[in-house]
Each structure stands twice: as structure tokens, then as C-alpha cells.
């Protein structure tokens, strides 16, 4: 009796263990038996990459020598795509090379270095990660099913450039992080001036690359920008920045963090061609879903080639911490009680706030609402840019926008709303409509002189391209209003 009880108990325990092991595997298919052919396939691909990118060759050699070939894992992302993960013997195997293999062509077609930072995997103690192995995390990432995962996933290219990082909490995407490099030409004081027989010079011009991390925080709608460092180059700025030594102990690669630019003061003092912000934080506190989405659209890092988004995210300030908050205020009126679409305020240098009146703005199309946001961003940009006595341009902001920023606004708007690209006259007319609010007011309130406004509209810079804007109000109406009937070229908020 006792013996049969023991036998049953052992049987039940074995069954529980088997069930537990099979449950932990989840839906990730594994091919743990990796033969030499996989290793050869991977090595062959890496050799090809060395030929394609000779600069990455030394780094790839280091990766190969540090690969843990005994622990290669594989997993299916889809019927056609398989992931092959080769761990590196750094960071307790949390860093490795991930290859994407096409089952149909039987070729590796993409690769990247992936890192699962250990310090971020436990955002709080209550985490219950079911994704334990790196291959599980990476596969789930590509399947877009993070299964309650808490932690982050970083990626670097084979030439040792940071690509991106995505953070998760209980399987929900919490943040995404990218790198942006901006360049500017600066004339720097050269500590070792080159003297010719007739001229001595102590200055020369170089390209200064400023690198930032741009992090989008999904819950709060914030985008934070962390200044990483500057580099002096002669040919042009690289797209991204190399792996940090503190995250991966590989000494090869292109580490350029906080390197100095010969002769350029590290404080990046204003006036040197537009110094970079060390840290900018943009908070989107707008409640109206349509308006909030439009602000987010401008905040989005992939809009960095958009001129106004660039101002917002990239050249907004000088060297100090910059905060810009978007706030909804639906009873927004000016000091005479007239309702207004938007309003900007500098609390002090580095602290800016844009107020948007959704009650007024919701009669307009997305395009026209976006112009109001751009308009307010420009006010704050002017303040951040001209933070000295000559920044006392109180009644010049709107005239400055009219004379110098109309094209920026128009191209940025078309970038965000490509439907306007084939109707450039409509885009320009919308921009004039945005600024006309500063003209069409009783004299004491207006900040653009009507004659200046008319001269810009009728200037030959538009007519020489065949654009006739004399009836600009009628043209603007084609995309100004929320109603599709009134404005067939505009985008309603419901779309």
C-alpha cells in the first residue's frame, strides 16, 4: 500500500513538473539543437557585412570572438521568419546578436545587437516576467505580444551604433527611445592658430554634431530630450551614436560621448550659431483628443525633418534646461475679452507654456488647428532664441512670422498633411489666415501692419511660381473648416 502510494506520488510530481516546463515555453517555438550549419551561416553573413562596411570590420571581429556559440537559440516569429540569437559573453548573456532568417530564401537578411538591460527588468518588485530568456523577449517584441513583460529592449547596429530602446511595463509599451544628431557650423577659436606670412587667424569653422536621446513616454504624452554630447567632424554627422562603454564592455566602436570640440566652449553659449539644448521636456496636457493628437504629431521624433518640429524638439533653446507645456484653456480671452485660439507665456527663461482654446479651435480642420500650434511654438522659440535686450521685439513676433517663417510653416504643414502638397496655394493661404488674426483687429490690438501683410501676399516670391494669392481667404476656406462640405481639402477631426 505504502509502496503504491509512493509510486503514485512520484508519478504526480513528475506530471506537475512536465506540465510546468511545457507551460513556461509558451508559444515560442524553440530549436535548441543548433548544428554547425547555423554557426557557419551566421559567420558567413558576418563576413559579408565586414565587406559591405569595412569600418565595422574590427567591431564584428570582436563580436565573433566574444560570441557564446554553445548557447545559440532560435525561434519562429512567423511561418517565414526565424530569429537566431547568438549570446555574447558580456553582461551575463543579456547581450547578443540577433539575426533574422528567411525560411523561404534560406538567407539571413537582417541583424542587430540586442541588449536586455538587467537593471531595468525590475521596474518595481511586483513584476512577474514570464519572458525569461533573451530570445523569448526578442521574439515577443517582433510578434508585438509582450506577454506581461516588464523591462526594456535595446538595439545597436553591427557597426556599434545605438538604434533604439523600447520599454515595457506588464506588457504595455511604456517608452521608446531614439537618437537624433543635429549639426551646425560653428566658427571656433583655435587654440593652435595657423599663421601664414601675411595673415594670422585664430578661428576656423567646423561641423559640430550634437547628439540627443529622444524618449517618448506613452502614458504622460511627454517627450524628453537628453543631451548626450557634441563631436567635431569635418565631413558630416553620423546618424547615430555608438554603444556606451558602461552598457557593454567592448572597447572597439565609435564612442564619441561628450568629446570636446576644439576651442568651442562646452557651455555652448548663445550666439555661436544656435547652441543645443542640454535637456528639453515637452509636456502635452491637452485634454481634447483631436488637439492632443495634433500636438503629439509635432512631438513625434520621426518628424524631426519637419521644420517646426525641429524648432520644437531640436533648436528650441540654448544650453539650459527647457520646459514647454501645452495646456488646454477653453475660456481663453485677451485682455479686452475677445476669445482667442492660442496664447503663449514665458514664465521665466527656460519655462514656457502654450495655452490652446479647443472651444475656438474645434471649428477648424486639423490643418488649421496645427497652424495655431505652430504659431504658438514660434512665439516661445523667439523668446528662447532672443533672451537678451534685443529680444524686446514685442510687436515684431507676428511680423517676423509673416516675413520669415511662412515658408517654414507651410512646408511643415505639408509634411504633416501630405494631402496639401499638391495645393501649395491652399497651404500658404492657411498660413496667412493664421496670421490675419493679428491684422484684422482694431488698431490698438493689431500687431501686423496691414500694408506689410498685403505686400507679403502680393510679393513676387509667390507670383513667380504661378501662385495667385490675392483671394487668399477664399483659397484658405478650401481647407480651413472642420466641415468637409465647406473645406473639402481639409481633414476633419473625426478622420
Amino acid at each position, binding site marked *: 500500500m505504502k509502496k503504491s502510494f509512493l509510486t503514485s506520488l512520484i508519478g504526480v510530481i513528475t506530471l506537475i513538473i512536465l506540465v510546468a516546463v511545457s507551460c513556461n515555453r509558451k508559444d515560442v517555438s524553440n530549436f535548441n539543437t543548433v548544428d554547425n550549419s547555423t554557426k557557419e551561416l551566421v559567420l558567413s553573413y558576418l563576413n559579408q557585412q565586414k565587406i559591405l562596411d569595412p569600418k565595422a570590420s574590427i567591431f564584428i571581429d570582436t563580436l565573433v570572438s566574444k560570441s557564446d556559440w554553445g548557447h545559440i537559440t532560435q525561434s519562429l516569429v512567423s511561418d517565414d521568419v526565424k530569429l537566431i540569437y547568438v549570446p555574447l559573453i558580456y553582461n551575463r548573456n543579456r547581450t547578443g546578436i540577433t539575426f533574422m532568417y528567411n525560411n523561404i530564401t534560406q538567407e539571413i537578411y537582417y541583424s542587430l545587437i540586442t541588449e536586455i538591460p538587467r537593471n531595468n527588468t525590475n521596474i518595481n518588485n511586483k513584476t512577474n516576467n514570464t519572458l525569461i530568456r533573451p530570445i523569448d523577449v526578442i521574439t515577443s517584441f517582433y510578434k508585438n505580444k509582450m506577454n506581461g513583460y516588464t523591462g526594456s529592449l535595446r538595439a545597436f547596429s553591427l557597426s556599434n551604433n545605438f538604434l533604439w530602446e523600447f520599454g515595457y511595463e506588464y506588457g504595455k509599451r511604456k517608452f521608446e527611445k531614439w537618437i537624433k544628431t543635429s549639426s551646425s557650423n560653428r566658427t571656433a577659436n583655435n587654440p593652435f592658430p595657423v599663421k601664414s606670412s601675411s595673415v594670422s587667424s585664430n578661428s576656423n569653422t567646423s561641423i559640430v554634431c550634437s547628439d540627443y536621446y529622444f524618449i517618448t513616454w506613452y502614458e504622460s504624452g511627454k517627450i524628453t530630450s537628453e543631451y548626450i554630447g557634441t563631436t567635431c567632424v569635418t565631413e558630416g554627422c553620423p546618424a547615430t551614436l555608438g554603444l556606451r562603454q558602461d552598457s557593454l564592455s567592448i572597447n572597439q566602436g565609435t564612442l564619441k560621448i561628450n568629446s570636446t570640440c576644439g576651442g568651442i566652449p562646452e557651455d555652448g553659449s548663445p550666439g555661436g550659431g544656435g547652441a543645443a539644448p542640454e535637456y528639453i521636456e515637452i509636456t502635452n496636457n491637452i485634454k481634447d483628443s483631436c488637439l492632443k493628437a495634433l500636438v503629439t504629431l509635432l512631438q513625434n521624433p520621426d518628424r524631426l525633418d519637419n521644420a517646426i518640429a525641429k524648432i520644437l524638439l531640436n533648436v528650441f533653446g540654448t544650453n539650459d534646461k527647457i520646459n514647454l507645456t501645452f495646456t488646454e484653456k477653453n475660456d481663453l480671452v*485677451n485682455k479686452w475679452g475677445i476669445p*482667442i485660439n492660442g496664447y*503663449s507665456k514665458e514664465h521665466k527663461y527656460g519655462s514656457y507654456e502654450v495655452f490652446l482654446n479647443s472651444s475656438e479651435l474645434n471649428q477648424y480642420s486639423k490643418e488649421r488647428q496645427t497652424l495655431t500650434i505652430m504659431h504658438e511654438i514660434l512665439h516661445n522659440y523667439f523668446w528662447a532664441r532672443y533672451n537678451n535686450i534685443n529680444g524686446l521685439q514685442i510687436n515684431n513676433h507676428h511680423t517676423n512670422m509673416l516675413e520669415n517663417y511662412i515658408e517654414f510653416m507651410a512646408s511643415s504643414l505639408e509634411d504633416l498633411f501630405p494631402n496639401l502638397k499638391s495645393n501649395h496655394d491652399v497651404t500658404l493661404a492657411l498660413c496667412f489666415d493664421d496670421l490675419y488674426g*493679428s491684422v484684422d483687429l*482694431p488698431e*490698438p490690438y493689431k500687431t501686423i501692419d496691414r500694408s506689410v501683410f498685403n505686400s507679403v501676399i502680393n510679393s513676387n516670391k509667390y507670383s513667380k511660381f504661378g501662385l495667385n494669392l490675392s483671394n487668399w481667404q477664399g483659397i484658405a476656406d478650401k481647407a480651413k473648416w472642420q466641415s468637409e462640405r465647406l473645406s473639402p481639402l481639409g481633414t476633419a477631426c473625426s478622420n
Partner: protein
Amino acid sequence: MKYIFKIIFTFCLLSICHKSFSQNSKNVSREIQEIKLIFKYLTNENTSTSFNLTLDDTLTLPPYFTSYRKYYDEKTKFKSIDLPDFVRSKYFNLNKFDCEKLNSAMLKDTSRLFFHKSWFTKNKIMILSDLIINNDKNGYTEYIKPIIFRNYTRCFITILHGGDLESFFLKKRNNQWTFDKFYIRTAE
């Protein structure tokens, strides 16, 4: 004896009054002197672009500085021009006494101070008449009377144009007024 006492008493009273009035007048005249220096600084060659001079370098001014009281409301204080109460600030270099002086001057000073062409030496000055500024069809930039504080070493100025506001601090160094920091700036 009684008459002698009355005479001495009256004399003392008169002299106290005189001293007090002359001190007040001395302060007012000192304030005007400082405002003249401030406007010389604000309209000098390096800063003249700030004041939107016309093409022929003419500086157009209203007849007088307005007062903050014009924008004061019991319920909302200076909300109509979006100026909050001054509070102690390391950034703006404002101590408790500075804040008291600034808040009280904004509330109490209702006097108008008239611009005089003689204050300006280099610029062509056009001072608008009352008739022009009282006509709603005419626009002009309003200058609110500067508040000079901390023993004539600091000054706070607000300028209004349409719905836009610029306020800033000046500081005195080596007997010269220079720009210090912007305070609140707003724009529509």
C-alpha cells in the same frame, strides 16, 4: 511765554513739513533722473532695435507712462495683463523687501509720469498727444511706469503692445543701467 511756545511750535512744524516735502521731491527728481538714464540705455545704438524705431530712427512714445492700477481688479488683481504677485526668487534675485516694494508700487502708484523730449539726446522722438492715444483707431505701445527699487540699483519695466506683454528687470552697474533678466512675457 505762551506766544513764544506757539511760535516755536509752528516753526518746528513748518520745518518738518518742508523737510518732508523736499525729501519727497528729491526722491521724485532722483526717480526721474534714473528713468532718464534708463531710457537712454534702452534707446542707445546697441538696443535701439528693441524699440521698433521707424525707418528714419524715430522713436514714437505715448505722452506718459501708464500705471499698473489701470489693469487692476479686486478679484483678479493683475490677471488681465497676466502678471502674478512678486514672490521671493533666487532666479530673479528678489528678496522679501524687493517683493514688498514691487507689489506695493504696482498697487498704489497711480501717478502718470510724462515723457519729455529733453530726456532723449540721440533719437528723434515723437511724443503722441492725448487726442491720438484716446482715439481707439490709433495703436501705440504702452509703457507702464518703471518701478525702481533696492536703493536705485534695480528696476522693473512692463511694456504692452496689443495683447502682448514684455516685462523685465534692469540692474545698475558702475552707475550704468543694463539689462538683467526678462520676467513674464506673453503673446497671442
